[in-house]
């Protein structure tokens, strides 16, 4: 008994292993040393911290990360067929052989792209990332340039890695960034993004989290949007046994806009957490969040959305909606909206709904000859429509629709097999 009591708590052991890895590094580095100090003191986030009330990293303690395969070409073949340049990372390391460099965009790789927005002192996973980051993409679209479409892919088959990416759009610049995360086996992907959108620029960020079923995906994204700029984000979560996607968006200039839409489709014992903090820090700024969850099996979905409106941010327009479709008795959704408003002339609304498939709608479709499984699939797709429909990039939207359909076929296969 006393021996057990002396053993470190499971998550402390995990943190200790990360620290040991840092300490085994050869070269000293001031930035990393600072992060390591933070991580040494703070460790991994735990259940006593309010933002981690619904999500525990405890399963990390039991995970044994696989040794990565030497050849990742099978994973490369699983990238969606989108005709665009691509930056491919394998276990967090840039892979030039798999990549097609874009024209008209400045890209640097080979070292972490630290960016300017990350807060390792506040977000413990960011301290971890800062301590161990090895590589990343530094993407810059110059003033007035339309950078077109760029794919940023993470392929993995093992290990724990901490990519560090920075994306900067100059004034009136444009970019559609399609982020793909996929892999096989057990691994941890812990990326951090620093995203700056200058005046009148528009960044469309379409994120596909289709990690392996045993993988862990913990990502933190910071975005700062200048006057009349737009960060248009959509996240599709299908993968990983445990995922936390955290976004901190600051609307820093007048009339800046942020869209943080998401669709989380989870089955089995998957757990996925989408946590957002939107800070309205300038007048007449707009934020929109439509989050849709489809949950089966014993899956658990979490959405925490905080909207902060500072005193100067008059005429703020904030909207947040979290909807869940629970397709099994054991599935669970936790929804936590938070509004902190210090301005007096604002329009902010939030809502949440939880339901099952509508029996009348199901009967209506079946009475028209549509078999039950197909009718369910149609209604699930319809439920997601509000989040998927605004995706303007047709190739990306079709790819995501395909993944959703395949996910659904997989789920109904599981259900059919159990019956």
């Amino acid at each position, binding site marked *: 008994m006393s021996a057990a009591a002396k053993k470190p708590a499971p998550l402390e052991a995990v943190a200790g292993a990360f620290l040991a890895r840092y300490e085994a590094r050869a070269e000293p580095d001031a930035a990393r040393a600072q992060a390591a100090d933070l991580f040494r003191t703070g460790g991994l986030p735990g259940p006593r911290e309010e933002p981690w009330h619904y999500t525990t990293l405890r399963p990390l303690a039991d995970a044994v990360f696989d040794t990565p395969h030497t050849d990742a070409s099978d994973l490369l073949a699983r990238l969606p067929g989108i005709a665009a340049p691509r930056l491919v990372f394998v276990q967090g390391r840039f892979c030039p052989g798999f990549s097609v460099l874009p024209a008209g965009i400045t890209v640097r790789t080979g070292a972490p792209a630290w960016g300017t927005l990350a807060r390792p002192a506040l977000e413990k996973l960011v301290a971890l990332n800062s301590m161990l980051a090895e590589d990343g993409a530094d993407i810059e679209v110059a003033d007035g340039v339309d950078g077109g479409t760029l794919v940023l892919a993470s392929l993995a088959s093992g290990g724990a890695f901490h990519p560090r990416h920075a994306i900067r759009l100059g004034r009136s610049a444009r970019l559609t960034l399609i982020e793909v995360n996929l892999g096989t086996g057990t691994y941890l992907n812990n990326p951090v993004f620093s995203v700056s959108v200058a005046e009148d620029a528009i960044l469309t960020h379409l994120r596909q989290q289709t990690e392996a079923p045993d993988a862990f995906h913990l990502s933190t994204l910071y975005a700062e949007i200048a006057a009349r700029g737009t960060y248009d984000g959509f996240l599709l979560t299908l993968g990983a046994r445990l995922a936390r996607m955290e976004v901190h968006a600051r609307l820093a200039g007048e009339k800046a806009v942020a869209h943080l839409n998401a669709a989380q489709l989870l089955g089995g014992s998957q757990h996925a957490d989408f946590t957002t903090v939107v800070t309205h820090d300038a007048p007449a700024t707009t934020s929109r969040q439509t989050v849709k969850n489809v949950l089966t099996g014993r899956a658990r979905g979490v959405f925490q959305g905080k909207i902060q409106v500072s005193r100067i941010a008059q005429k703020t327009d904030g909207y947040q909606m979290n909807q869940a479709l629970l397709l099994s008795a054991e599935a669970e959704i936790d929804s936590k909206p938070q509004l902190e408003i210090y301005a007096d002339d604002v329009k902010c609304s939030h809502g949440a709904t939880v339901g099952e498939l509508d*029996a*009348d*709608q199901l*009967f*209506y*479709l*079946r*009475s*028209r*000859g*549509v*078999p*039950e499984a*197909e*009718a369910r699939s*149609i*209604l699930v*797709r*319809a*439920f*997601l*429509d*509000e989040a998927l429909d605004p995706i303007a990039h047709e190739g990306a939207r079709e790819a995501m629709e395909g993944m959703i359909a395949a996910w659904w076929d997989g789920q109904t296969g599981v259900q059919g097999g159990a019956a």
Partner: protein
Amino acid sequence: MLEIKGLTACVEDKEILKGIDLVVPDGQVHAIMGPNGSGKSTLSYVLSGREGYTVTGGSATFDGQDLLTLEPEQRAAAGLFLAFQYPVELPGVNNANFLRTALNAIRRARGEAELDAVQFLKLARAAIKRLSMADDMLKRQVNVGFSGGEKKRNEVLQMGILRPRLAILDETDSGLDIDALKIVADGVNALRGPEFSALVITHYQRLLDYIVPDRVHVLAKGRIVRSGGPELALELEATGYAAVIAEAA
């Protein structure tokens, strides 16, 4: 041919249908009239297989096939169509996709080739034109934001595209103005022929001016209390249900 014998059914342990006997031969249109609460809608739901309705006795066959053991989609594939009293809204489902999915599901079940998008659109546009509906009907989400009349016309559009062999129209006339009523009636009449039969459920005689039935049945308290020719509808209109039901009792 639809053959219903001694059909009894419950909703939440309350017996609503108390022994229905009814035969609708191919090529005929029969009307079922009756006061509110007589079991008209229950009959339509039992025949189309809605959950929550328990058949406790009797039988219903369509061309000799036992309807009551089939799933709703199998009944549709067999040729049954229910025009809903309250058509259901399907937000996020495009009307054209809905119609094509339904048509192809039925064609598949019947062993017929599916229609591609081009073939389907041609067929759908022709059906829309026949029903004097707006072209954008196909682009809209199913029944979302439709007026009452548009919803009913959409039901008739579906019927025109799916071409059932037996249609049950559950108070399709409710909420329709006279122009819409004529359009709906034209849609039904266009399908009439030796291969088509219909059960027209209605509260009012008015619809039967436009869809002239071969037979009229009066449903009261879960039983058919009287049957007759089209003139029975006129009699009901003139004297009211109470008199006809009292006379039958």
